[in-house]
């Protein structure tokens, strides 16, 4: 298929994928090179088919850490100019440049890749929530209305890098090993269709959220309509989008703890609620299921979600996809397979399989400077 056809297909449909995922965090917020995450994700070759890979790193842009950073991919120079005019109207551009890449001969369909560090005009006066809403609407606007442009990263001091290729190629292409971060996540994709559009790869992100996801969401139809009710429009890149928006809605807007979000996305079964002895817990879970019934994510999934302060691993409530975690010192690891952890941390202090629906939540306590590791 030609690229145009492929892209049209992908924009009009979400494509089921099997996948490998991996995440590493340093609890103290110390920075470490992206090399480790490349090693980890590349070990799980069997989990991808060379049609999509990506990385997310936090703490990678210390020199512009106060500015919002957009990573945008363009089909051609014409749409780039239109979007840039739009951005200049809305923001003070602090810095902009092509995303530095290395020539990797095996990669195809490479779009124009550009990054912008921007401040909201007079934005310093506004509170964080209003700023986030402004960024969110900007990203939704570009992705929905500017054909041939896709904002694939839009947080502060973090960035998502992704494309169509295997994790080695994509890691090499973006020179992920040149960045240093305190949280890294990565994805290796096994889409069921031929794909060509780079926007369809993971991680998926909005604001400083990033999500890598292995699974297929059977409740996609209702999750999407629930989010539309709340003002989020899925542009149908991938069903991972739904999980990202659910986290944004439930955490940033409804101010729910991640543990509670875990109980919404992978709700406890009525059988276990019925036998709960503590009436307050029982009431809480029951109410949670009543109010957030449309946010229950059904079907098999393992996800690693991150924002600037936290990394969360979560399985569906039957645990139909693999997820392993381990820790050593200040480092916590999450991955589809134990081998993907052991290849970068030979002797972890603890290795465990998170239970179905039980989130692994790791908060980062950064001292102001953050040391290089």
């Amino acid at each position, binding site marked *: 298929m030609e690229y145009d056809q492929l892209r049209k297909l992908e924009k009009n449909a979400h494509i089921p994928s099997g996948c490998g995922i991996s995440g590493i965090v340093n609890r103290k917020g110390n920075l470490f090179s992206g090399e480790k995450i490349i090693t980890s994700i590349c070990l799980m070759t069997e989990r991808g088919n060379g049609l999509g890979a990506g990385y997310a790193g936090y703490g990678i842009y210390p020199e512009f850490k106060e500015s919002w950073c957009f990573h945008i991919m363009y089909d051609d120079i014409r749409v780039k100019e239109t979007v840039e005019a739009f951005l200049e109207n809305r923001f003070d551009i602090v810095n902009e440049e092509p995303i530095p890449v290395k020539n990797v001969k095996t990669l195809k369909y490479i779009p124009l890749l550009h990054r912008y560090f921007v401040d909201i005009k007079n934005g310093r006066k506004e509170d964080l929530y209003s700023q986030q809403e402004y960024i969110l609407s900007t990203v939704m606007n570009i992705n929905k209305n500017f054909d041939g442009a896709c904002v694939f990263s839009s947080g502060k001091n973090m960035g998502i890098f992704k494309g169509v290729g295997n994790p080695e190629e994509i890691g090499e292409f973006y020179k992920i090993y040149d960045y240093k971060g305190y949280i890294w996540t990565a994805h290796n994709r096994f889409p069921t269709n031929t794909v060509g559009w780079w926007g369809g790869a993971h991680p998926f992100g909005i604001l400083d959220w990033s999500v890598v996801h292995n*699974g297929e969401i059977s409740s996609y139809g*209702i999750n999407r309509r629930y989010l539309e009710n709340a003002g989020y429009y899925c542009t149908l890149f991938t069903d991972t989008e739904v999980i990202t928006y659910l986290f944004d809605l439930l955490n940033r807007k*409804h101010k729910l703890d991640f543990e509670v979000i875990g109980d919404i996305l992978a709700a406890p079964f009525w059988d276990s609620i019925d036998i709960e002895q503590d009436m307050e817990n029982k009431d809480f879970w029951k109410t949670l299921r009543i109010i957030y019934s449309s946010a229950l994510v059904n079907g098999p999934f393992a996800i690693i979600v991150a924002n600037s302060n936290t990394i969360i691993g979560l399985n569906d409530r039957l645990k139909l996809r693999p997820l392993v975690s381990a820790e050593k010192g200040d480092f916590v690891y999450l991955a589809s397979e134990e081998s993907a952890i052991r290849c970068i941390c030979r002797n972890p202090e603890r290795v465990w399989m998170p239970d179905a629906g039980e989130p692994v939540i790791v908060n980062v306590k950064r001292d102001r400077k953050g040391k290089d590791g």
Partner: protein
Amino acid sequence: MAKAKNIAEFIIERDEKKCIKCQACVRVCSNDVHNYDEETEEILSDNIKCVGCHFCEDICPTGALTIRRNLSETKENAHWTRDYIYKVVKQASTGGILLTGMGNDRPYKNYFEHIVLNAAQVTNPSIDPLREPMELKTFIGRKPDRIIYDKTRGKYILKERVTNLLELELPVMFSAMSFGSISLNACKSLAKAASASGVYWNTGEGGLHKDLYPYADRAIVQIASGRFGVNVEYLEKAAAVEIKIGQGAKPGIGGHLPGEKVSEEISLTRMIPEGSDAISPAPHHDIYSIEDLRQLIFAIKEATSYRKPVGVKIAAVHNVAPIASGIVRAGADFITIDGIRGGTGAAPVAIRDNVGIPIEIAVAVVDQRLREEGIRNQASIIAAGGFRTSADIVKAIALGADAVYIGTAALIALGCHVCQKCYTGKCNWGIATQDPYLTRRLNPEIGAKRLSNLLRAWALEIKEMLGGMGINAIESLRGNREQLRAVGLNEVELNLLGIKHAGEAW
């Protein structure tokens, strides 16, 4: 002019070799079809009186009777079919409105039969309901947008509780059928089965008979335009209150119970004189607008101290989506939509067969409208009107219904053969009659068991279908139109239903 004669709809075939002249058929038929001639010692059957209820056929100890449709045809004519010719004949003889019972029997497009379901393959495992939990629990009523809690010492404590919800073990309830339109034994069967199965039954506009008080905590009581049987006790005993504006079988007109059926028990329950016609006005005479409806909703909420959900039932008509939105904004906690195939005990044929829209489309547009307005969580949608199988229910829920009401299916479980003669009060199955000779044929214990069996069977089937889709909780199906595909619908229909055509991927 020759007197026009009615034509027999059915022909009774009696196998004389099998008939033992026991006269069971003679004794049981409320329509006096069978007569024993003592002189000739023969049983003669008058085809013209037969309504096709099949009671004699079922009760005949030797299987000597077979009821067949009369195939006598008028001259072939696509426009003037036999039905239409004989309707004119009847009305020319009587000068009256033609009455009927049960739901619309016209061949309008049935959208359920143009919708197919999904199943998981490879990329998503299907789930086996025999081995894994499969949840059908459903809550009806107003739900807040978000949860509000305090976190103290690692524990989450609710700051605002959610109250006034009906909790259903499966998303199926028994539709409004009044004591009057059906017998007390039929009401008891429904009430017992609802209590045993963890669902709810609906009193209709017939009031709540004292014998049904033990099942009142599973009763949704109706307030219709006639206000029959409405008193404080009625409201206090109920689980929920439903204001009936209209019903699918007869949108725009009120209920009608002829005085002949108003026995002592019905008179006491409805609070009307014995033998008087119980005729509900077409509109509620205190509701001429949406703001009037709001007043009644809140009057009922005040009367019940805001402890019970209050819903509104309407017939599915052209403007159903904006009307539903108005009803939700007027404060209703649930909205019942009754489609064009909704049943009744008595309705004019002309109304039943021609007024209203299909429930499939009504549910889809109402759900979509409420979501667009961001008020979908404020009220539950209960769909009614013609649900025949568990698959119909699964499709309605995927289109956006929270639960469905079944009426005709429940009566069929009790013996009904859908002969559409409920309005005559001569139901041989003891369902749509008040004649004690007939009503004692329906044993409420057995009736309740059969209804519970039906609910159980459907629950098992719904679980199988959910599991096939890779879904293990009904809420992940609700409004999940991605699980539906159309076969043979045009673009307008697809848009209204909000579904894709078969062959289109995600």
